[in-house]
């Protein structure tokens, strides 16, 4: 018995990915994201030289190329920040719900934010970016709690199937309210629709600045929950046995995730599937330890959104396809692959 236990323990140690490998992956990921960010500044309807980029970063807007860069810089930063927020939020949500399909888009959180903003615009004269942030975050939070609550009713708790259905159904329900409110109001339906489509195109430093405090708190809360999420991964009962206050851990971590995706959604509109796909890819590379998984998901998420933004500018030249559409079209096949790979019993 004791001998077996030692062997098991040794097996676990051996099976763990060495820190070196993880660091390597982390380094590669950061480098790739930096490259993508650079590409995002350079690529566009007007190609610019590296000298222009350097000059523009220095604050110069002397020629059109530099001016183009000056416009692309906040856009790139916004894409990075939104991607970081969504990737991280997805990893936290999957940890909190122990559910591989948890994602702000699937769980109806985006639609919650949308409805809140539509109601705000239609009846409360909502127009400032800060107002959007608060309203979207509250809407996202309410929707998240609601979907999780109804998805976890009954036998078996929050199974992937029940959560996904609860999310899809709630989204459908919220969407019909959004349409009902915005359709007859010709004046606001344009605003609402452009927000619903989302994107990082209209980014400015001001909106990024307003989003920053939300993000900072969200990132901090999420990263600090990493160790607790590791205990939670063993199941509520075992986690409790290990001395974890399950409900508190869950609430705190979920708050972090909601802040992150609420803020990201408020500024960039609903962007689906980043939060779903990124943690899955990351788990393959750095394993299931949340202390690695969370930061890694943030970095990869940033890379994915920047890459999608660049792709959206390339495929529809001289126009552009919004980043939320690109991520959905890239992300849905991954979602389907995940569903196909899992055993039916665990759905």
């Amino acid at each position: 018995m004791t001998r077996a236990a030692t062997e098991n323990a040794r097996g676990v140690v051996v099976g763990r990915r060495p820190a070196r490998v993880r660091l390597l992956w982390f380094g590669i990921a950061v480098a790739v994201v930096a490259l993508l960010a650079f590409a995002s500044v350079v690529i566009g309807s007007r190609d610019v030289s590296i000298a222009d980029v350097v000059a523009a970063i220095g604050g110069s807007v002397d020629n059109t190329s530099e001016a183009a860069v000056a416009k692309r810089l906040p856009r790139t930063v916004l894409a990075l920040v939104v991607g970081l927020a969504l990737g991280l939020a997805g990893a936290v949500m999957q940890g909190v719900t122990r559910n591989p399909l948890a994602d702000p888009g699937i769980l109806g959180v985006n639609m919650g934010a949308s409805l809140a903003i539509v109601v705000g615009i239609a009846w409360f004269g909502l127009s400032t970016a800060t107002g959007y942030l608060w309203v979207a975050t509250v809407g996202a939070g309410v929707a998240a709690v609601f979907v999780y609550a109804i998805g976890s009713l009954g036998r078996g708790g929050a199974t992937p199937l029940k959560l996904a259905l609860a999310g899809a159904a709630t989204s459908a329900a919220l969407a019909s309210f959004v349409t009902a409110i915005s359709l007859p109001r010709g004046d606001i339906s344009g605003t609402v629709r452009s927000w619903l489509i989302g994107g990082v195109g209209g980014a400015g430093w001001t909106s990024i600045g307003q989003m920053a405090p939300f993000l900072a708190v969200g990132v901090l809360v999420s990263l600090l929950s990493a160790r607790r999420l590791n205990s939670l991964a063993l199941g509520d009962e075992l986690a409790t046995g290990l001395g974890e206050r399950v409900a508190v851990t869950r609430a705190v971590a979920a708050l972090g995730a909601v802040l992150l995706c609420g803020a990201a959604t408020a500024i960039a509109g609903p962007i689906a599937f980043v939060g779903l796909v990124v943690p899955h890819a990351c788990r393959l590379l750095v394993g299931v330890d949340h202390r690695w998984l969370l930061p890694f998901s943030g970095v990869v998420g940033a890379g994915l959104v920047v890459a999608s933004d660049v792709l959206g500018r390339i495929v529809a030249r001289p126009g552009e396809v919004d980043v939320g559409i690109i991520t959905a079209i890239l992300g849905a096949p991954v979602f389907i692959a995940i569903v196909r790979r899992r055993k039916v019993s665990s759905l």
Partner: protein
Amino acid sequence: MTATAPSLDAVIASVSRSKAVRARRRVVVISILAVLIMAVAAISLMIGNTVYSVTDVARVVLGQDVDGASFTVGRLRLPRMVLAIVVGLSFGIAGVTFQTMLRNPLASPDIIGISAGASAAAAFAIVVLGLSGTAVSVFAITAGLLVTLVIYVLSHQAGSAGTRLILIGIGIAAMLEAATQYVLSQAGQWELQAVLRWLTGSLNGASWEQTLPALIALLVLGPVLLSRRHDLDAMRLGEDAASALGVRIERTRLVVVIAAVGLIAFATAATGPIAFVAFLAGPIAARIVGPHGSLLVPAALVGALLVLSGDVVGQNVLNLRYPVGIVTGVLGAPYLVYLIIRTNRSGESL
């Protein structure tokens, strides 16, 4: 075993008695639904901008000429009413078929991506290809069938495919909605009106030319579904048990899916996806008929009633005219949420 086993005849008598009670309830419910549909249909012919009397309406329906009413009732309201009933029946029967087959009330075509496929294709056809009229419908029908095929193939693996089919449908729906959003962002103001009809579902501008294909689809495919109702009923016991009872699962599923999707696609081509009708008709029917026997007919009737009354409400009750899809969407949403709560509490059957 207990000492005194009841006699065979006594058991037969008692079982038949409860059976007869249930059969009577079924007949009563179906008759009430039919009467309600006729009543709402009559109301829908009578009221509107100008209100006509019962006798005027009756004379128009019988083919006589009535001043003013002949055009308004005969040309505008009558096709609208018939179309409402036809698509309502189609959505209702197809929706409950999916729900029964996948043993999940949330597995209706509007949630698992079939309607989303038709909408996306229609939007694409209008905005990008610049099509209109019948061509758009053909596009939508083809897309609906194609999306179903893709979902079906992707979810088809050894063993039970029900839950997987639902989840893959949700994923596909998300992707298609993104595509629709993109098409919308490219649309001009004029095209937008045409596209929005395909997103919300509306009976505006209903004509006999629109009604006829949907009606033919209903007359052909409806009986196909009805002939499979016993197999569908057996499938509610789980695929293993149904197979043990002699149901050819794969074949039944294929026939039923094709027929149901055909109905959905033709109905959607006529009016756009009317939110939640396919989804709500089955559970509401189950509520009023009870869990026994096939739900196909009651659900079809409930579907017709929903569309018909949703349209009457949208046209007349508010000071603004709402398309029927908005009305059913807003009224259906709370029920949808209630239904998820109830379903999750009690396992996963209708």
